[in-house]
């Protein structure tokens, strides 16, 4: 079905070893929980397992990370998904009144899937992906990332390669977690430019105001214009085939011009997409409408195509990072935005490769090492570091917030047990605390003294 050679599906033993020795449960826990001690962000979170033979177990929840790990190792799922934080523990769902069990918090998630680009990509189709078509994803990621940061003010974005042909985005800002379904739908509406799903990518959902694009679209266009020549014209050669250039001609409002171009291109079948594109541009000054038409083409070919349903509802499940894609054996790894253009999906470690790396280590070292830090020695390490860095940003944020709102007891606990930077923070924030924390001030000043 696929072009790559190693299409061996991971066996149960392989998966079990992966979960036991490599899967970074702790990192996932920190990322979901935002704190060291389990909060409802973790304990009331839904986990759904897909077992061998397509058995699907929903509404699992765990009171701490060890429970999660034990259950995963016990069930040995082919993959598992993360859902929302509910108003109660999902495993108690059956004991609840029907209306009382509601999703309350959820990362804002996005899913971009290569299949939505099938009508325009020329290199592969279906489940395949190569570096050439990754260009679409990279452009989409850049546009989405800057839009969500600049317009919506979100900062805690985690991009995760989905293991085969797509990419997921998880936004963990507090405001983003709290969005209602209605607000999520609105946000998706704001970001949706290409309507009508897979087939009819031609209807653009933009209205120009006096010929001007709305600011967010204009920004996106300015960026996409830069990569358009390289991606669409040179790499993908989208207008090389007759089918391809007909799409382009359809967009040209002036039918005479379209006719001239068609006969010109029919006579020279070898003419490259880039040349064809510049053919359109020759008359540009004459037609103002032509320019907007060509702008539309750029957007149509490179603007992010979202799977909107994933983002609209809080209770939509999404595959957890670091799961193994059951068909390819590749791990769903977090990505650094800086390396997005150079990312090669084929270079992502597979579960087989990782286990082979483990074997190699074991031969050279003694075997009585702690099991859970095994990933330190494999090529999974840089990806886990990305996740850990992201999670520690989130935890830092919560710590600041707690200090600000004066949950001193919590802070002290953190300072002494876990946080080497805590001393610094405490000193900075102490004057603030003085204002409203009279009863605990004694305790606080003693702590400072101790430190």
């Amino acid at each position: 079905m696929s072009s790559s050679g190693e299409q061996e599906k991971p066996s149960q033993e392989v998966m079990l070893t992966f979960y036991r020795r490599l899967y970074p449960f702790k990192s996932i826990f920190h990322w979901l929980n935002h704190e060291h001690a389990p909060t409802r962000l973790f304990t009331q979170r839904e986990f759904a397992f897909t077992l061998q033979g397509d058995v699907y177990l929903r509404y699992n929840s765990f009171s701490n990370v060890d429970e999660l790990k034990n259950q995963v190792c016990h069930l040995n799922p082919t993959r598992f998904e993360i859902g929302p934080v509910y108003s109660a523990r999902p495993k108690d769902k059956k004991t609840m009144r029907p209306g009382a069990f509601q999703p309350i918090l959820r990362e804002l998630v996005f899913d971009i899937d290569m299949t939505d680009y099938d009508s325009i990509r020329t290199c592969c189709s279906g489940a395949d992906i190569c570096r050439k078509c990754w260009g679409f994803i990279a452009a989409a990621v850049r546009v989405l990332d800057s839009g969500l940061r600049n317009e919506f003010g979100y900062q805690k974005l985690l991009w995760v390669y989905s293991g085969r042909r797509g990419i997921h985005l998880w936004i963990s800002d507090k405001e983003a977690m709290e969005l209602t379904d209605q607000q999520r739908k609105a946000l998706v509406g704001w970001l949706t430019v290409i309507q009508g799903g897979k087939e009819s990518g031609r209807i653009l959902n933009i209205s120009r105001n006096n010929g001007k694009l709305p600011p967010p679209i204009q920004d996106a266009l300015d960026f996409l214009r830069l990569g358009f020549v390289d991606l669409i014209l040179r790499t993908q050669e989208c207008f090389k085939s007759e089918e391809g250039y007909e799409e382009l001609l359809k967009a040209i409002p002036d039918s005479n011009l379209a006719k001239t171009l068609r006969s010109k291109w029919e006579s020279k079948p070898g003419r490259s997409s880039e040349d064809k594109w510049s053919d359109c541009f020759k008359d540009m000054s004459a037609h103002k409408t032509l320019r907007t038409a060509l702008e539309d083409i750029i957007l149509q070919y490179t603007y992010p195509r979202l799977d909107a349903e994933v983002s609209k509802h809080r209770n939509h499940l999404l595959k957890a990072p670091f799961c193994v894609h059951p068909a390819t054996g590749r791990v769903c790894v977090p990505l650094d935005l800086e390396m997005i253009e150079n990312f090669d999906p084929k270079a992502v470690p597979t579960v087989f490769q990782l286990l082979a790396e483990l074997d190699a280590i074991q031969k050279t070292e003694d075997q009585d090492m702690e099991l859970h830090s095994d990933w330190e020695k494999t090529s999974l390490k840089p990806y886990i570091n990305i996740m850990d860095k992201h999670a520690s940003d989130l935890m830092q944020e919560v710590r600041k917030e707690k200090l600000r709102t004066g949950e001193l007891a919590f802070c002290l606990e953190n300072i002494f047990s876990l946080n080497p930077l805590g001393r610094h923070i405490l000193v900075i924030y102490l004057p603030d605390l003085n204002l409203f924390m009279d009863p605990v001030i004694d305790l606080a000043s003693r702590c400072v003294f101790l430190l």
Partner: protein
Amino acid sequence: MFKSSTTFGQVKNHAAFPSPLNFYDIPPTSEVSIEEFETSALDRLRVLAEIESSAARNRPWDEIKEVTTKQCKKYLPLSPSQVDTSNSDANVKSEMELRRRDHLSHFVLRLAFCRSEDLRRRFLQAESTLFRVRYDMALKPERDAFLTSRDFNWIPVEDDEVKKFAGQLEAAYGPAPDSTTRKYVKVKWTRVPDLVEKRKVFLKAGWAYVPGGELSSIIFQEFEDHLGKALEMTARLLPRLDEDTRLLPILNNLSQGFLAGISSEWATASGSATGSEIKAEMVNDLARKHFPLCMRTLHESLQRDNHLKHFGRLQYGLFLKVLGLSIEEAIAFWRKSFSRITDDKFNKEYKYNIRHSYGLEGKRANYPAKSCVQLLAPGPSDYGCPYRNYAPENLQTALLSSYSHLGLRASDLPEIMATVKAGHYHVACTRVFEITHASCGVTKGEGTGGGESVTHPNQYAARSMELHKPKDDMVID
């Protein structure tokens, strides 16, 4: 008694009502008579029910506005000038009195509709629409008074910030009307999801910059959020109120009415609705031409089996009474229909009941005919609303066999079945009315006149007969 929701919002001026627009922050604290408690709520319910059925029928906004304004004038006027003087019992009240009544009725319905998720959602939707209509219709000074009466928690954008984003603001909202610089306020984008969804607002770092002209969007959203939260809070506190035995039945009754989607005046109507006398032998013909499906079904099973069970008799008998069948004609009609039993048995077992329903025996009460609300309520009767009780296939067959001679075609069924599936039984019935009376010039959305929905079988039949009247006369001529 309204302690339940005092925790919400703060309004500086709660003694009076500075504007006809009201956010209902503070519950009423004055004494209220039980009667006013109920009647004001019923009036408001009529308006909300009409809004709901308008929404179910996918009316365009302008039409919703028109229908709602009409209903408001009739039942829920806000200023003396709006009071429809032709409406008998509405003695002209002062503006403040009307606003107080509006305020009171809102809070009564809150109590009635906070009980279930479904009721809350529907109430919220209807109330928001009502608020939007009123905001749309309000005059500028009224709006201004409203805007200053309450803190909406928005931040005015400083001039230099406007300058900083001038280009983007202009791209988003078009060039500012000459000479005046536009004023903007900023709010978190989550407060204007409708503007965001249509990309009609300028966003920067999570803040939405909303121009002065678009404030309504913030206000509507705020109204919904606010009422949604208040309803949930009321629901949580309601058990304490449930001890009051005087209010509970009223509240239950109100929410029942809303569940059926209607509240009807026809329940109290009696006597001849059409003026002309109806003879026993006319009933069969009338049933074919003018009866709603529920009564058609009863009539047909009576003709087929020569019998009807007690509740069916009661229901159909009262319907015929209100339609204008006199007691003599009624006895004749039933005697003829029950053709398989002896005179003796009829006189002994059935005549009494017929006379009883006409108020001539026993308690001598003039019983009203059953309204749609009553027919929709789950009860012992096999003869409720067919739109609700029938299985979809049976309903389709029944509709076609009953109404195809009046112009109902199989192609109309999907639309009707869709409304039935959504639980809007009276809307389905109204739609059938519209289709079967298209030949009289009834168009889609007009309902039984002026956009009203069917709320009572007698309303259906009376309106139908009224529509056919000139034509029938001509035939006689």
